């Protein structure tokens, strides 16, 4: 095949055009040749199979046929590393995307050889990975780019012995960009592309080592490792909505765009996080001591585009799970796949604008990135405007040959108004519109700034990890749940009418903490056995006030709460990973947590039966007198502590032909709100006991991959928390029990990714056997993405089309007083076209424009919609958003096409 060198002018023009369009230089370089090899555009890391890491390095070499559309058409095993490891490698590689091999500028099929090395112990470099290309790429990719749950994998730099232009869009791109066109051509020649598709397996492959983060061993069927992958295309307005990829999760929000989501999970009303341990990269999100709800977790600061994966454990089954892991835990792992600089602008309904900047050097892994967003919306109804800004940055670096470090910084600030709840009867009588509000003073502000650093390294047979973090949170929330109901005339007060039940709540806190762990490994009976020990330590220092404000002028007239707190939580754990037989694994151990409280109540005295006649307290909220005018200081301090021991265990049988059986049992704990602390009385935390059994199937179906699960679970909570609209925060309730089951499945292939789950649960109070209100007993969720290159190729470049769909169905939720809510059904749809470095997308949320009630409540309120006070419980609701349309334009500079 003769090679025709391009003419200088046309080359210059092409260079200029490429520079203008942000095409990587590598792509141009390839244009010099008439023959080029496939180039990795996007890569999915392989994961270790279930069970302990191997005692020795395992090499699995695959022969992969790359089609003209860049997808993986066929995978064969060239060199087996064992069935489980071959399968893990196949499952990863079928999700890879390539720029296809080209002959004279036309794509052709090609077969390439891809080795996967699974290093012993989970972290390390592979023997023989010492070529210059390897070293170069390794240093760049040494950052724990997998950022994902993967522990450590080897990915090929090329398909042949010659260095081939790197997967610039992948996290392992590294120095491979320096490969010359000549090298690329040499590689391409070695490929023997179609029509004579021929293996190049005789070529010794170049290898790139990626040192990744270790992934905690799975706890069975309720341990969901969720790679967003192409499901990222499903419309999601924030990171919280990604949780819906795990079964049984319903999100509502009665507080507005800047308000934390209320999360329901497996029969738990986790409110704004009280029952779920939220973390991002291991850094806690839950705010211990938050006055609005202990464990309050606002995830709005997470920019969705930089979430690489999620680990959701539905239950307290992992000894690493700490405070608030009652219903389970969710950990966001950050990472940016698309390298280069990406600029996106979104314009949407109701004056919604969003600017997003993303950048990640091509020479670094996905764990190194920066991201910033500005968001502004007028809102879809009265009093729903919001604006926020968020910035996140992370840098990952290599620490020797077997370690990595990471530094993460984040800042977020938001301001919003909130419509709050509407009385159903007022809406039906036409007094308010569906998207109106009863109180225009509702809204809030929130900010979060944090910095965290961690390192992970393998020393001998021990993998150690250490993380430290500092978090600053501030939150103001102005709510009115009950209108004009609670400000009753007290004898001590001067005569007044109802002034309004508006709440002005302010929380400021600092959190300092650290985590550390050590995982040791030995081999017994030819099978690796592990022991991990670790700790978590955090201190929360903050203050909280809740004022009552007049509806007419927002002037405070009363002080409900004024506390200053210092909270400590020291946890330690041991986790065994024992494998007596190749098909039998025991995992579990013991966790211990010590909670300490030191609370200064600045409003310790709020009433007096026999007030001073000469110096009556009048309307003061926090009193400095006892009976008959005796002085007392209005403040009072209380401190207490209590420890909890939490056993957790799992047994996993299998896999047999991809199927595993598992059963788990564990205890979890949720610390209590500081306002409930009494001197020297034990911290009345809530304890949960949970068990579950399930079956998991995971494996390939042709060139597709399927993971499905069925789980049966039961959970008991000793002292549950139920939100009180009158108190404006969570209050203690009796014990509750949840029993249910779920089915879930994710099926993915080279052009589709489908995820669906259904969860049914019955949640009851122990003493009455009545249903726990508000908790959905049926949740169905579907997320699907279909993507493929379109048949026409402008300028010789493929146009990739992607369609994403999200469907939510929630059954009639039980409400207080024997009521049931409306069923909830929404459809979200998105579509996008990507060509070269450009992308245009449209999205529609609530596509069917259903007028639905996102949240429904039954309680007493008086918004003065009747002639006389309304004092009995009636239906309230928060409106779900109507159909909203969004148009997004994006361009990438310096990344791959």
């Amino acid at each position, binding site marked *: 095949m003769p090679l025709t060198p391009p003419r200088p002018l046309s080359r210059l023009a092409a260079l200029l055009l490429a520079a203008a369009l942000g095409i990587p230089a590598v792509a141009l370089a390839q244009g010099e040749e008439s023959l080029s090899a496939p180039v990795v555009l996007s890569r999915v890391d392989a994961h270790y199979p279930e069970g302990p890491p191997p005692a020795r390095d395992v090499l699995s070499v695959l022969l992969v046929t790359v089609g003209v559309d860049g997808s993986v058409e066929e995978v064969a095993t060239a060199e087996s590393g064992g069935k489980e490891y071959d399968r893990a490698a196949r499952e990863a590689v079928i999700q890879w995307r390539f720029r296809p091999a080209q002959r004279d500028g036309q794509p052709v099929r090609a077969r390439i050889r891809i080795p996967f090395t699974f290093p012993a112990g989970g972290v390390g470099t592979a023997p023989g990975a010492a070529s210059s290309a390897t070293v170069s790429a390794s240093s760049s990719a040494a950052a724990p780019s997998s950022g994902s749950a993967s522990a450590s994998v080897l990915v090929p730099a090329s398909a042949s012995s010659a260095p081939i232009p790197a997967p610039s869009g992948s996290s392992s791109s590294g120095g491979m960009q320096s490969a010359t066109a000549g090298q690329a051509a040499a590689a391409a020649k070695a490929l023997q592309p179609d029509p004579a598709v021929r293996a190049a397996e005789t070529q010794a492959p170049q290898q790139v080592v990626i040192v990744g983060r270790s992934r905690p061993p799975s706890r069975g069927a309720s341990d969901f490792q969720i790679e967003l992958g192409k499901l990222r295309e499903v419309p999601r307005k924030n990171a919280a909505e990604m949780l819906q990829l795990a079964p049984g999760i319903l999100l509502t929000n009665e507080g507005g765009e800047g308000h934390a989501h209320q999360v329901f999970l497996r029969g738990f009303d986790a409110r704004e996080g009280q029952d779920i341990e939220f973390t991002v990269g291991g850094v806690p999100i839950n705010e211990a001591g938050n006055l609005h709800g202990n464990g309050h977790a606002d995830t709005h600061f997470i920019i969705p585009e930089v979430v690489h994966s999620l680990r959701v454990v539905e239950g307290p089954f992992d000894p690493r799970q700490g405070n608030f892991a009652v219903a389970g835990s969710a950990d966001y792992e950050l990472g940016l796949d698309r390298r280069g600089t990406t600029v996106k602008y979104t314009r949407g309904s109701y004056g919604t604008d969003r600017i997003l900047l993303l950048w990640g050097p091509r020479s670094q892994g996905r764990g190194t990135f920066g991201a910033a967003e500005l968001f502004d919306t007028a809102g879809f109804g009265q009093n729903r405007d919001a604006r926020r800004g968020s910035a996140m940055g992370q840098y990952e670096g290599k620490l020797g040959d077997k370690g990595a470090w990471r530094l993460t910084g984040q800042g977020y600030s938001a301001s919003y108004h909130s419509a709050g709840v509407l009385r159903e009867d007022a809406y039906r009588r036409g007094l308010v519109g569906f998207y109106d509000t009863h109180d225009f003073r509702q809204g809030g502000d929130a900010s979060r700034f944090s910095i965290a650093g961690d390192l992970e390294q393998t020393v001998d047979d021990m993998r150690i990890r250490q993380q430290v973090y500092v978090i600053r949170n501030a939150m103001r929330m102005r709510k009115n749940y009950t209108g004009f109901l609670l400000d009753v005339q007290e004898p001590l007060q001067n005569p007044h009418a109802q002034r309004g039940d508006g709440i002005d709540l302010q929380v400021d806190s600092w959190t300092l903490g650290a985590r550390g762990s050590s995982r040791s490994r030995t081999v017994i009976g030819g099978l690796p056995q592990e022991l991990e020990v670790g700790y978590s330590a955090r201190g929360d220092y903050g203050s909280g006030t809740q004022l009552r404000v007049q509806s007419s002028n927002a002037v405070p007239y009363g002080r409900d709460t004024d506390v200053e707190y210092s909270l400590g939580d020291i946890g330690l754990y041991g986790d065994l990973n024992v494998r007596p037989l190749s098909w039998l694994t025991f995992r579990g151990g013991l966790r211990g947590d010590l909670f300490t409280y030191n609370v200064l109540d600045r409003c310790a005295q709020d009433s007096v039966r026999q007030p001073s006649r000469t110096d009556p307290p009048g309307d003061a909220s926090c009193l400095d007198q006892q009976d008959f005018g005796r002085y007392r200081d209005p403040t009072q301090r209380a401190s207490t502590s209590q420890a909890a021991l939490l056993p957790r265990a799992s047994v996993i049988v299998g896999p047999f032909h991809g199927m595993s059986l598992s059963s788990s049992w564990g205890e979890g704990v949720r610390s209590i709100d500081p306002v409930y602390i009494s001197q020297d009385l034990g911290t009345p935390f809530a304890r949960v006991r949970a068990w579950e059994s399930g079956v998991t199937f995971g494996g390939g179906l042709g060139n597709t991959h399927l993971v499905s699960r069925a789980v*049966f679970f039961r959970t008991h909570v000793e002292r549950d928390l139920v939100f009180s609209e009158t108190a404006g925060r969570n209050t203690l309730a009796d014990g509750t029990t949840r029993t249910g089951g779920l089915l879930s499945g994710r099926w993915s292939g080279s052009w589709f990714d489908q995820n669906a789950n259904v969860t049914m649960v019955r949640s009851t109070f122990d003493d009455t056997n009545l249903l726990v209100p508000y908790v959905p007993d*049926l949740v169905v969720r579907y997320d699907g993405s279909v993507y493929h290159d379109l048949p026409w190729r402008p300028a010789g470049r493929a146009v990739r089309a992607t369609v994403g769909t999200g469907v939510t169905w929630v059954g009639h939720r*039980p409400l207080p*007083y024997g009521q049931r809510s409306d069923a909830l059904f929404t459809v979200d749809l998105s579509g996008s076209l990507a060509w070269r470095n450009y992308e245009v997308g449209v999205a529609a949320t609530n596509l069917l424009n259903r007028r639905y009630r996102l949240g429904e409540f039954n309680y007493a309120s008086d918004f003065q919609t009747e002639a006389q006070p309304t004092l009995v419980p009636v239906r309230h609701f928060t409106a779900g958003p109507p159909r909203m349309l969004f148009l997004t334009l994006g361009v990438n500079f310096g990344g791959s096409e």
Partner: protein
Amino acid sequence: MRRLAPVALALIATTSSCVGSTGSEVVDFPVFAAGPVDSVAGSPYEFDTSAGYHVRLDRAVLHIGGVYLNRSRPVQGAQDTPCVLPGVYAAELTSGMDVDVLSPALQRFPAPANGTADRALAGEVWLTGGRVDATEDSTPILQFEGAASRESLSWRFEGVITIGTNRQITPSDPATPGANPLCKSRIVTPIPIDLTPRDSGALVVRADPRVWFDLVDFDQLEGAQGQGELLVVPDELEGQPATTLFQSLRSVSAYDFVWQ
């Protein structure tokens, strides 16, 4: 089979998840008001009082601003409670109307009451035209006219009772300026009841004007001479007739709640 067993178990165990209740239920029901059963519509209502008078009421119209059913009955000797206490109400009727209390016929309130199917132990009649905690309210709560006689003396009387600042009680203790809120003067409570509201059925509130006038000493009305002159009962807390009438108007024994 092993694959299907857990699935089947989960399905069987959770089929009951969509049934069950959180307890109680929400109810709506009509509310009626009426005068004494032995009254005759369109005719004066005559009765003898404990004060020794024979009273003939020619007109008596009571404005009921609201009716509430309370789930708890105050314990005697317990600390005074505010006018309203959220969380203790089983039902409410928030739309008022004028009631001819000289007619035994059931007079239906314009809107139904709503509430929950919880046992109620105390009834409340709210005698107000505006908001119950408003400082001023000129709504005529009771309009009446009639005649009274004792031995050879007779009087004609009429009057209008409102409940506004004219009923404000000055606090005796400066330390508790809010001890006597006006709303307490507007709420007749606790009227002993024992009923559970249902969707089927109706609440009937009967007012008995005999109680209102039972202790009124007409002879103490200003200008009273017993010669059949027309006397006006003042709309303020002044003098035995006006004070007694107002206090009796707020007597729980003047009202009867019947579920039928």
